């Protein structure tokens, strides 16, 4: 949303002042808070897909970046695929890790907690009977997701737990995964 520069008053390189300023500005202009994120993809053959990510809509207009990011997804050899890239479900896990970690850093910055290291391991359990159609009672997606944080910071154990809890409370990806979302798919 805003260019972030580490300055001397920042402990963890998160520009909390800019985020709090944005919050205040958006409270006064609710329509500017309506964002639409976008990704466009193209099949590359087999089960390999390349997704490009650049523009999004927000603050009342289209926002273009100066560069386009590329994210590939494929499947590993045990799925009889060439394993050119991670699976889509692993990208979901990386999205959760990225979102929660950004949250931990932001909350720590806001609370004046100096972080030295934040590592997370994210695991998602899946029974393939779902996607293979073996058993209709088994869901396609994760049965459970576990996130384990290892955090080294100038804070008590409870204060670190509070950073992680608050991060979940404010996390978009955590919400997307834990709550139902209507998904509309159509063929143009």
């Amino acid at each position: 949303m805003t260019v972030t520069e580490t300055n001397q008053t920042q402990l963890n390189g998160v520009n909390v002042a800019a985020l709090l300023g944005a919050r205040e500005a958006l409270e006064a202009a609710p329509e500017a808070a309506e964002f639409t994120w976008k990704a466009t993809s193209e099949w590359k053959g087999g089960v390999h897909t390349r997704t490009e990510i650049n523009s999004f809509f927000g603050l009342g207009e289209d926002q273009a970046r100066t560069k386009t990011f590329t994210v590939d997804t494929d499947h590993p050899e045990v799925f009889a695929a060439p394993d050119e890239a991670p699976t889509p479900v692993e990208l979901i896990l990386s999205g959760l890790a990225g979102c929660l970690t950004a949250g931990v850093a932001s909350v720590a910055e806001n609370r004046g907690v100096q972080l030295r290291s934040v590592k997370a391991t994210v695991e998602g359990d899946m029974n393939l009977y779902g996607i293979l159609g073996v058993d209709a009672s088994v869901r396609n997606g994760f049965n459970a997701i576990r996130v384990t944080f290892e955090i080294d910071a100038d804070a008590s154990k409870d204060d670190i737990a509070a950073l992680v809890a608050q991060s979940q409370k404010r996390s978009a990806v955590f919400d997307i995964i834990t709550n139902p979302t209507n998904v509309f798919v159509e063929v143009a």
Partner: protein
Amino acid sequence: MQRATTIIIGAGQAGLAMSQQLTELNVDHILIERGQVANSWRTERWDSLRLLTPNWQSRLPGYFYEGPDPDGFRTLGETIDLFDNYAEKISAPIQSETNVTRVTAEGQDYRIATDQGEWTCRTLVIASGVMNTPNIPGCADDLPTSIRSISSKDYRNPGQIEDGGVLVVGPSASGVQIAQELKLAGHDVILSIGEHVRLPRTYRGKDILWLMDRAGLFDTTIDEVDDPNRVRRLPSMQLVGSPTGMSIGLNSLQALGIEIVGRSGGFRDSTALFSGSLANVCQLADLKMNRLLASLDEWIQNSGLNAELEPSYQLRPTRVPETPTLSLSLAERGIKTVIWATGFKPDYHWLDLPVLDRKGHLRHTGGVVDAPGVYAMGLPFMRKRKSGFIDGVADDATALARHLRGYLDGQISMAA
């Protein structure tokens, strides 16, 4: 057309306290009340309800509890008596059974239209309460018609609830108390849990509200908090006022056999969906409670009470099911009733003044509303943490009555 210097809309604790203070300052006024004194307590609460706050914690201007049981909790009937007696003691000029239909500005005055005629006034106090309309999420409309859907405001007693399962949505004071009552009456009860404020009834041998009161936490002012909007939105404390002094919480409810599930995520066909965030909302509540108890320990230490009170201890973390239920077939589980204990919002449909924010709440600074001569009373954390409590209206009434008197005397020309 009748006239009063000040009109107070609502004769609950907030309106009555203001009336007492205005009488002290010789401001002639009328309270307009849609029903009888303490109407919400009289008509919109369940039968077994007792106040969360101990008897001593109901200090009103010119009144404090002098009875034999300062640590007891008033029943609903005793609460209504408290306000009836107080209204009589302060000779509150109440126009009862009168519904305000519209409030408009007219020059420097306000015109109050009601179903019993019109009034005009120079100054207006809005004390109509904040628990007017249940905050029922839109997804309630997706429930099959075979399921009865009611709010906590419509709940009276277990006799009113059809045999079978009940889904109670909301883990604050109302939700946990109703869930417990229905479970004890033999219903299968599922309790849906979002963010909540966990508190033990007692800590170190003292009532938790006594400790918080003595430590000065209820006197925290709105200027002292980082995020006023957040503290004003906090759900009610997860407490019960019981004659046995028992605690209520997610652990005790689960021990009774109530199943806890995540925040309600709506309904698909006749399946209820719940958020996977149950563990986090429980952890947030545990951490927050532990911070409060630690701050009370510190206060106890600093005020030299350490030796008098029981030693400090840790409460058990909230027990969260290993795999919380994410979706539930209402039919298969035999759910016949959904009770929404999801909070309330104020109803100002009659207020035709430009003083509401986009969420329909009054724009005000410490109860001084954003229109000259208009005041609010009884809003959550309006001036202090206790503002929304019976025990909190006295300080607010004192401060705002003075402000109002100053406005009438021309010392304050604009809303501050």
